């Protein structure tokens, strides 16, 4: 919860968080070590110095640390747990639905648990998806179209098998498809991060929402084009947001373009925890204004109204969260005890 100087309460839903184990004990091979170290480089490179963790803490943080970073020190009211399996790199997987579920189980009002699928898993994958939906009642999945699997170096959402999974997911009650389209992890060719396949499925599955994580950066131009064509395509701001510290001018440029092309109702805040933490991201975001020269060109302005949408209202709509009811639940469980009369700042 973020309180403005005027006493307005902003409900924050963090669209992108992880509870991972990248520790040496869980690393299966050199790739596991390199993977977490690459994440750490993102963290170390884009965080303000005061928010920088040690590699050891970054590799594996405990449930309490995560809870407090998000909800006590940070302004998140709720957070979506997005899984990343990486079974080829980590013995027990990196950040599985099962592992994330331990967070959800301890704090049911705080977390939204998402699952995942991979169309290349065939019937076994469909069964697993069904089982996960039954067990966890998930409303969303996170997909990595560029993930390697055996000989395959990625897939497209427009593939026949992907359609089969999307149809099944819809049947099992899933509404939101988060797709990682962002900085490369291991693509041999970059095409697995191409956002073109989103266009296809967004048209075919009008009742599903497609949230393009990281806004397709570094392919923002393609993403903007698709998102303006399709009413059910959204942009997740994880990874774009931390640039607010290291390169605020650039962040202003990106926001100006995104607001111009896809508008304030289709952008979702995400910290990408544990890569970055909500406190400093939101402090800076709330204080941020798009530079005048950008506004002059696009007319885009980050008003308080727009910030509220990005920070929580848009995600609440996608996940069917009744904000007032949720606030009440969190309050009754003592979740706002640390807030007392505090005011966090702008306006």
């Amino acid at each position: 919860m973020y309180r403005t100087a005027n006493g307005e309460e902003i409900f924050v839903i963090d669209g992108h968080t992880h509870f991972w184990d990248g520790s040496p004990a869980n690393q299966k091979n050199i790739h596991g070590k390199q993977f977490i170290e690459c994440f750490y480089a993102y963290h170390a490179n884009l965080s303000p110095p005061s928010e920088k963790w040690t590699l050891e803490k970054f590799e594996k943080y405990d449930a309490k640390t995560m809870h407090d970073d998000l909800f006590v020190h940070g302004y998140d009211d709720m957070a979506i747990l997005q899984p990343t399996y990486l079974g080829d790199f980590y013995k027990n997987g990196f950040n599985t639905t099962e592992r994330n579920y331990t967070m959800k189980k301890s704090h049911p009002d705080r977390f939204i648990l998402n699952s995942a699928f991979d169309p290349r898993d065939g019937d076994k994958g469909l069964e697993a998806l069904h089982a996960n939906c039954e067990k966890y009642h998930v409303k969303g999945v996170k997909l990595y179209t560029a993930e390697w699997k055996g000989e395959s170096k990625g897939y497209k959402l427009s593939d026949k098998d992907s359609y089969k999974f999307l149809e099944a997911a819809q049947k099992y009650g899933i509404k939101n498809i988060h797709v990682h389209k962002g900085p490369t992890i291991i693509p041999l060719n970059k095409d697995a991060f191409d956002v073109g396949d989103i266009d296809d499925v967004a048209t075919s599955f009008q009742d599903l929402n497609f949230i393009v994580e990281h806004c397709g950066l570094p392919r923002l131009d393609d993403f903007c084009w698709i998102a303006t064509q399709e009413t059910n395509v959204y942009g997740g701001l994880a990874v774009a947001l931390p640039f607010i510290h290291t390169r605020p001018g650039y962040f202003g440029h990106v926001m100006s373009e995104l607001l111009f092309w896809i508008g304030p109702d289709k952008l979702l805040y995400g910290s990408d925890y544990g890569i970055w933490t909500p406190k400093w991201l939101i402090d800076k975001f709330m204080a941020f204004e798009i530079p005048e020269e950008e506004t002059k060109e696009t007319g885009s302005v980050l008003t308080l109204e727009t910030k509220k949408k990005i920070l929580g209202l848009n995600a609440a709509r996608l996940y069917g969260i009744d904000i007032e009811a949720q606030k009440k639940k969190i309050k009754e469980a003592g979740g706002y005890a640390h807030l007392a009369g505090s005011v966090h700042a702008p306006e």
Partner: protein
Amino acid sequence: MCAQTAVDRKAEVWTRLQTVTDPELDEPVTDLEFVTRADVDADNCVHIEFRLPTYWCAANFSFLMADDMRNAVKKLPWVADVSVVLGEHMYADKINAGLAQGLSFQETFGAEADGDLDELRRTFLLKAFQRRQAALLAHLIEAGHDAARLVEMTLDELVDLEVDDAGARLQTRYLERRPVVADAVATSRAFVDADGEPLQAETLSTYVRALRRVDINAEFNSALCRGLLHARFDTETPLSTKAGQRVAPP
């Protein structure tokens, strides 16, 4: 070979490497501090070593840069052979073996690779053209040049155009990439679109705005790559092998 020749040759190698860009970032691999070694041995063989911002950097781009470095250095008449070695990368062994045997990217990766490097190279040369053109046009419009005049301008007129220092740099960079899209003789139009078609004065500012999105992508990559390289390696300490800095005795 006398010591002075060795030093000169090494400097020549660095000058050649300066012409090789990271295709996505459109910046020289030397400025990006990717190249960690460029030595000339007694037999006039050149040994180049490089590294990239992450262990996961796309293999096709890695291969392409290595290939470009080799070709750029081979152009020096005295060079007997060039070896290029990539370090600390998921595919280092595979890429290095392919490079050593003179294989193509497709031959090196076989079924794992699709799409050939020439097409990739062309795609990114085109992006570099657009990015450099947008920067130059924005600069010239800002400096008060008339849109109607800019769209009619020929290449030799652009070369002769009086510009400030920043403009001159943008002009040079643009002219380097202008031949990518269409014939570039003195009387050709200086500014054409990616298909080689003339631009329109009325829509010039909209056109430049649209191109700026290409720039956003490149800036994202550039900021990220420099930062990641810095987080991964010590990039503060100057490399002892770099031309113009402490040159090791041969």
